[in-house]
């Protein structure tokens, strides 16, 4: 865990509720006179400290689910509860990482990681006084992902994988309740991607936050998740809930086992285009 300025109160009364509760979530949009139903009464819950992946064909509304949690997309139909109460507007305790790392090019790595603390309450108020502590916390996160020697580098000086690692640190620095990952490793080459899985696992072990990952990579979903949800093509429903009971910490060797292959086959067979 990080040091004192960033530790949070976990003794809240909301602890009995799931962190995220999707109940009958539907989503439709109208274009050229006819409506397209994207999500059709999707229901599932994410427990505290769980790592959940959502896989499915393109356009099945996986990303829309993440955007609802982050408050970027209003919930049209159904209920989406965060720790027992509905989400309206943006959740301050969300960390988000996209396929595009979108680091701010005018900030160096350390300054990029510190960005959420300049915006999110209560850190925002104390940003100047606690800057030294915040910087220390950011450095520790960067060290976890092997970027301790790149704090003063600017994004143009970093490789794609390094940028993505910095982007993950930025998503975690304010100790969010929920980490939202929208295909964060999709643009990386296969070997870098596997390194990122290990690093992601190390980061999670450190912060214990709840995580929701959207991905097209089934091995990635299995490697990282406690539960994988498979969605059907539009109008999308959840067609499979697959608990992944592999022991933690997971290793690359595990991905070569029969057990892993068996899980992979089950996932693959449920995905239709």
């Amino acid at each position, binding site marked *: 865990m990080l040091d004192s300025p960033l530790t949070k109160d976990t003794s809240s009364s909301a602890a009995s509720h799931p962190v995220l509760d999707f109940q009958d979530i539907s989503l439709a949009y109208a274009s050229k006179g006819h409506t397209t139903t994207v999500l059709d009464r999707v229901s599932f819950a994410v427990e505290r400290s769980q790592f959940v992946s959502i896989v499915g064909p393109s356009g099945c509304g996986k990303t829309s689910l993440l955007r609802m949690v*982050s*408050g*970027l997309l209003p919930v049209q139909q159904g209920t989406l509860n965060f720790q027992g109460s509905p989400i309206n*507007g*943006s*959740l*301050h305790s*969300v960390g*988000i990482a*996209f396929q*595009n790392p*979108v680091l*701010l*090019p*005018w900030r160096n790595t350390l300054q990029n990681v510190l*960005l*959420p603390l*300049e*915006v*999110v*309450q209560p850190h925002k108020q104390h940003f100047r006084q606690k800057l030294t502590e915040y910087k220390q916390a950011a450095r520790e996160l960067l060290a976890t992902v092997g970027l301790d020697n790149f704090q003063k580098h*600017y*994004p*143009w000086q970093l490789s794609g994988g390094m940028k993505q690692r910095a982007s993950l640190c*930025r998503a975690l620095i*304010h100790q969010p309740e929920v980490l*939202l990952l929208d295909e964060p490793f999709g643009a990386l080459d296969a070997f870098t991607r596997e390194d990122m899985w290990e690093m992601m696992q190390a980061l999670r072990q450190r912060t214990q936050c709840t995580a929701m990952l959207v991905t097209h990579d089934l091995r990635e979903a299995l490697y990282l998740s406690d539960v994988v949800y498979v969605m059907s093509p539009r109008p999308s429903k959840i067609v499979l809930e697959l608990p992944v009971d592999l022991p933690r910490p997971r290793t690359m060797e595990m991905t070569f086992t029969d057990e892993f292959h068996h899980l992979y086959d089950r996932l693959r067979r449920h995905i239709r285009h």
Partner: protein
Amino acid sequence: MTTITPTQAKSSTDRTAWQQFLSSSAATYVLPTGAIALCLVLWEIAVQLFGIPEFVLPAPSSIFAIIGQWSGVVWQNSLVTLQTTLIGFAIALVAGLLLGFLIGYSKVAYTTLYPILVGFNTIPKVAIVPLLAIWFGIGTIPAVVTAFLLAFFTIAVNVSLGLATVEPEMRDVLKSLGASQFEIFQKVGFPHSLPYLFASLKIAISQAFIGSVISETVASNKGIGYVIVSATATFDIDLAFLCLFALGLMGIALYAICAAIEQRTVHWIR
């Protein structure tokens, strides 16, 4: 097997020395200066060789010969032109920034104002100067206004482009953290538009300069533009050319200053 003969070796070292020079910062001064010197020499030879009369095209030597006599006049009027240019440019900077932020952020403002701006920008400003002279009298004000009118469009368009091209995900990162519109502007929109702003400044300063000189030639009694008109009216072509040289030097200096500011401030652009 290939063997390297002494001559081959020599030519290859020569080539690297030349390439080294080309990539050095000295080359950026030496080469243009050399080119200018060469042009002046060719010009001098052409005038002498073809016997071109002085009231059509004076030789560089006769232009340089009058420097002593006219340097005071040229210097004072250059300062006047410089001053009007900078005042017009400063106003254009403030107005361009505000307008750029407005049309960059507001879809309504963009849709409403952009066609008007484009239409206005295509009117040759020299056509407006006589009107400005009627409204403000002859002198500094029409020149400042013309400089402003020529420069502000470039700044406004570039700044709005800088805001409009922010990646949606960059905004999303801040929105998901609960940032206010102002915070998003402060942390993302404003810094993102800076490279666009600074790239526009070196163009805008040249435009402001053109604007003030145009106005001086039509509606003024001082400034380099005015001196050129007076000099050509009396067939003092030497002086007119000396003024043109002064304008060229000032233009390069203003551009270089803006380019230097750009390099210092937007170091992250590669």
